[in-house]
C-alpha cells in the first residue's frame, strides 16, 4: 500500500500536476506526499518515500538524477523526526509550513546543484519557479490535510495530528 502510494505520488507529478496547473505553476505533489507520510509514519518512511518519489521525479524529468531524491530524502527524514512535536491540524500552520518547506527544498536543491555547476540565476529561479510553487503547495497541502482529517473524522478513526 505504501509502495503504491509512493509510486502514485511520483506518478502524480507527471500526470495530475499538469492538470492542476495554474498559469505556469504546478504543485510539487510528491513533496506534499512525503511531508504527509513523514508526519504520520516517522523518519524512516519519510526518508524512503522522499528518496523514492524524488528519484522517480528525477528520472521522469530527465535532469540530474539524484538531486530531488536527495532534497526530498532530507525533508522526509527531518519532518519525520519533528513529526511528534508538530501541530499541523490548523490551516494556519499547514499553509505557511508547507510554503516554508517548499522554499527550503527549492533552496537546498539550488545549492546542491550549484556544487555540480548548475547554470541558473538564483533570483529568477526563486521568483518564477520556487516561490509560486511553494505557495501553491501550501494551499494544496492544506486542502489535502483537511480532506484527510474530515475523512478520518467521518470514519471515526484517529484524527490527523
Amino acid at each position, binding site marked *: 500500500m505504501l509502495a503504491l502510494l509512493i509510486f502514485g505520488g511520483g*506518478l502524480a507529478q507527471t*500526470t495530475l500536476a499538469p492538470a492542476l496547473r495554474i498559469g505556469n505553476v504546478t504543485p510539487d505533489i510528491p513533496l506534499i506526499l512525503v511531508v504527509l507520510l513523514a508526519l504520520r509514519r516517522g523518519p524512516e518512511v519519510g*526518508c524512503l518515500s522522499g528518496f523514492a518519489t524524488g528519484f*522517480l521525479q528525477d528520472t521522469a524529468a530527465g535532469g*540530474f538524477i539524484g538531486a530531488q*531524491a*536527495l532534497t526530498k530524502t*532530507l525533508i522526509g*527524514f527531518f519532518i519525520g523526526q519533528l513529526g511528534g512535536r508538530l501541530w499541523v491540524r490548523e490551516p494556519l500552520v499547514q499553509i505557511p509550513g508547507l510554503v516554508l518547506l517548499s522554499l527550503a527544498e527549492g533552496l537546498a536543491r539550488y545549492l546542491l546543484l550549484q556544487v555540480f555547476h548548475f547554470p541558473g540565476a538564483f533570483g529568477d529561479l526563486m521568483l518564477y519557479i520556487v516561490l509560486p510553487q511553494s505557495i501553491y503547495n501550501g494551499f494544496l497541502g492544506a486542502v489535502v490535510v483537511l480532506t484527510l482529517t474530515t475523512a478520518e473524522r467521518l470514519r471515526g478513526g484517529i484524527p490527523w495530528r
Partner: protein
Amino acid sequence: MRIRQFGLLVAALGVCLLLLTLQTRGEGTTAGQLVGFVTTPLQTVLTKVNRSAVGVWATYLDWKNVRAENHRLRAEVEERQVESLRARDVEAENGRLRRLLALRDRLPLATIAGEVIGREWGWARSLVVNRGRADSVLRMTPAIAPEGLVGRVVEVRSGASIVQLLTDPASTVSATVERTRTTGIVEGEPRGTTRFKYMARDGAAIQVGDLIVTSGLGGVFPKGIPIGRVRSIFDRGSALFHYATLTPVVDVARIEEVLLLTGQTPQDLVAHFSTDR
C-alpha cells in the same frame, strides 16, 4: 533504532551524491546506462500512463468545452430563431400596413385604421377592433381590408368596436355580381362560409369565379367593395331562386388590421381594390 534511521538517511544521501557525482564527472554514461537500465522501463510505463491520463484528461476537457460551447451555440441559435421570427412578423405586419395605407390613400372617403385586438369564433363571428366611440366610430360602419369587405360594426364601446364578420350567420349584405350586375344577398353561414342568394333565375348567368361586390343598396356599404368569388352554384331546378357559395376575398381568420369607413361615397369602389381578375 536511531542509528538505523540515520544509517538509512546516510545511505540514501550517499546514493544520491554518488549518482550526481558520476553524472558530473563524465562517468555519467556508465551511471546513466546503469540507472537507465533500471529506470527506462519505468519511464516508459510512466510516459504511457502519463500520456493516457493526460489524454483522458484532455479528452474530458475537450468534451467539457464542446459541451459548454454546444450549450452556448444552442442558446445563440434559439435567440437567432426568435429574432428571425420577430423580424418576419414585423416584416409581415409592415407589408399588411403598407397595403392598408395604400388602400386608405386610394379610397375617396374618410377611413380610420384599426387593429384587431380580439376575435369571437363561436356562434357569433366577430372581431374586436381598437377603435371606438372616442374615434367617432358609429354603428353600421363598414370594416374593410385591402382585399375587400370584412364586415360591419355592430357595437361601439368607448375604446373598441365589435365588427360582425361577413361569415356570421346573422350577417346579410346586399350584393351584386360584378360581371352581370345581378343582385342578391350575401349571408353568413354557421359553418363559417358565405352564400349569395335571392338572385333571380332568369338572366343571372352567374359563373364559378365571378366576383361578388357590395351593391350599395341599403346605404350601409358603399358600392363595389369585393366580398367573394363564386365557388359553386346550386340550381334547384324548379325553385324561383338559386344560390351560390362564395369564397370570401378576405381571410378573416388571419386578419390583423382593418379600415373602418367613416365616410360615404356614391362612387363604385371596386377599382380601388386589388382583386385578381
